[in-house]
């Protein structure tokens, strides 16, 4: 096993990876930007290296600097986390040529599966159902229009090198098609340097169901069951759970087998996720493979008892997978909510700033994978994710009620968060019924605003705080008093 690894990421996921490393006796090297000198992942690591300025390109996306830091620190492997360079084939290739183990699949696999049309072709060959659509991408708007006509509207315009909803358009009729192609092409060109597009048939109210897979370097592959991630905002998942309320044992077997086929067909190694769409009739279609650890991996961990990061490290070190498919059992139900620094009352505007008070929820079945702490100034340069709150319980309903309790006791003051919005979603009758599909939020929570129940109590608390303020001068000034010294930045290692 590795003695020391570098984690090329920040926040909640860097902290989470380091914790497993510590438990395995592996030393950790954090990297950080100027904005993150006091970030949680820096405090958690054994060593920390400053990458540079706060802009991602100068820090967490700076391949040269990261590989160089790993070499200097004698780290034998790099864990990319998710986001940033996690699915960048050039980064994986650079690690490979530098003799540093990249904790993930090979650069070839990342490149193949990163190209949506290459992946689609590969899966069709392997007998995995794919959404009806084009197998080659093009920049020719008129051929896209013809194809759409043939396929029948509504269609989905997607970027060949897509991600995060960029370059994606739902087109419901002929008259919108050309304009949609042109704007999607320009967006994709800007975002990925590749404006080529392809079309997929647009499913009606599909569910997003994905399977966690593990594949070693010796040809063994298993899946760890599904996660349902249908609750999304702007193509970003916000609530995930397992098991999926839509799943039956036979469907689970069929989809699980398909996921393992995907792993074997692509030559996959390490942990990955095969995403499917599931339509109302119970048919499923291959969507794409995420060639990395997934934000929602904890719901799988909490119901299977398997530490996925530990498995990633074992696989990357060349250990054979000793888990057999039949030994993997799922018990109970788990739900994850992503806690974002966004203002849900103001169209989910990002809300960076200083966290004045931070009290994490706790108790039976509650896990909070957190990347921030009290006093931390959440930077505006990065993803707004603050933490992932996960609960597990015996049944979906018990897990749902546990999530309500956990969300209601999660105190974050100073910045806006999505917590009040999530409470209303989790409490809703529709969520309780398990009627989750990818247009759930648009359908039920458009123009949400916080109801004013509790406003009187909040006003009372204001006054009580005034009444007692004299007696706690320390507490009142504390958050303003803390200094941000050490402006002289540099590497910590010698």
């Amino acid at each position, binding site marked *: 096993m590795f003695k020391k690894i570098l984690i090329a990421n920040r926040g909640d996921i860097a902290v989470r990876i380091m914790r497993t490393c510590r438990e395995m006796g592996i030393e950790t090297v954090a990297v950080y930007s100027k904005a993150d000198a006091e970030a949680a992942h820096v405090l958690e690591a054994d060593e920390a290296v400053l990458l540079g300025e706060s802009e991602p390109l100068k820090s967490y996306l700076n391949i040269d600097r990261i590989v160089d830091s790993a070499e200097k620190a004698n780290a034998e492997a790099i864990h990319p986390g998710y986001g940033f360079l996690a699915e960048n084939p050039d980064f994986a290739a650079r690690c490979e040529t530098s003799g540093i183990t990249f904790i993930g699949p090979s650069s070839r696999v990342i490149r193949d599966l990163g190209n949506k049309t290459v992946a689609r072709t590969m899966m069709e060959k392997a007998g995995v159902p794919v959404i009806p659509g084009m197998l080659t991408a093009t920049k020719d708007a008129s051929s896209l229009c013809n194809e759409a006509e043939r396929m029948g509207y509504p269609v989905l315009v997607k970027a060949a090198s897509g991600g995060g909803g960029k370059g994606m358009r739902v087109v419901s009729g002929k008259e919108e098609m050309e304009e949609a192609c042109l704007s999607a092409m320009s967006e994709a060109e800007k975002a990925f340097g590749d404006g080529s597009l392809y079309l997929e048939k647009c499913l009606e109210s599909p569910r997003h169901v994905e399977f966690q897979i593990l594949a070693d370097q010796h040809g063994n592959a298993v899946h760890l069951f599904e996660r349902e991630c249908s609750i999304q905002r702007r193509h970003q998942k916000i609530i995930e759970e397992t098991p999926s309320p839509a799943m039956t044992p036979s469907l689970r077997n069929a989809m699980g087998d398909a996921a393992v086929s995907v792993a074997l067909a692509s030559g996959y190694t390490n942990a990955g996720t095969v995403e499917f769409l599931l339509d109302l009739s119970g048919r499923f279609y291959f969507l794409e493979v995420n060639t990395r650890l997934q934000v929602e991996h904890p719901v799988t961990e909490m119901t299977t008892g398997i530490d996925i990061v530990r498995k990633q490290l074992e696989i990357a070190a060349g250990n054979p997978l000793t888990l057999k498919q039949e030994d993997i059992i799922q018990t109970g139900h788990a739900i994850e909510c992503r806690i974002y620094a966004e203002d849900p009352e103001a169209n989910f505007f*990002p*809300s960076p700033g200083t966290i004045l008070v931070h009290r994490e929820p706790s108790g039976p079945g509650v896990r909070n994978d957190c990347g921030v702490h009290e006093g931390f100034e959440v930077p505006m340069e990065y993803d707004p994710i603050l933490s992932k709150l996960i609960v597990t319980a015996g049944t979906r309903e018990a897990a749902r009620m546990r999530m309500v309790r956990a969300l209601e006791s999660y105190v974050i003051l100073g910045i806006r968060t999505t*917590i009040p919005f999530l409470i209303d979603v989790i409490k809703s009758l529709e969520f309780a019924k398990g009627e989750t599909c990818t247009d759930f939020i648009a359908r039920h929570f458009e123009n949400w605003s916080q109801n004013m129940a509790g406003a*009187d109590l*909040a006003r009372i608390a204001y006054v*009580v705080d005034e*009444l007692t303020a004299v007696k706690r001068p320390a507490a009142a000034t504390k958050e303003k008093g803390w200094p941000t010294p050490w402006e002289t930045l540099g590497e910590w290692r010698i």
Partner: protein
Amino acid sequence: MKYRLKISEETAALDVSVSAGKQNAEFTIGEKAYSVRYRTIPDHCLHMIVDGKGVNAFVADGGEGKHVFLKGKSFLVRDADQLSSRRAKRRGPDQTPGDVTPPMPSVVVRIMVEEGDLVKKGQGLIVVTAMKMETTLVAPSDGRVKKINTSIDAKVAPGNILVEVEEEENE
């Protein structure tokens, strides 16, 4: 004691009578009366017993008021009287309702108008980005772009006036 406290756009009048030294108080808000006992728990927590029921509130002083956490909700509670006097002050000669300011710390990525341009209410003027999300700031009213005080890649924060739009006489 009397308070006028504002949450979002709703202002309510509070009438408070405190029992000296006893850590309890009677509140009247509109038609409703509340009997409240309270104690402070380190750190930032107020444990209140409101009409017999336990309530834990967390309070932190922010810029424009107090942030109050209650059972998963977070309210920004502001003193309406201080607020109006502060507003009155701020609306000095160098500040007008046509000022465009970002809602959060962010970076300017696009400027879509030039000084002197005529703009319509709601028209996009400037795009800022924070946390990987772009937000378009729009004209608060019909008018003419009087001044642009920023540039591409500039880091900006709430309160910074990025664009000044002057209302036209004939609006």
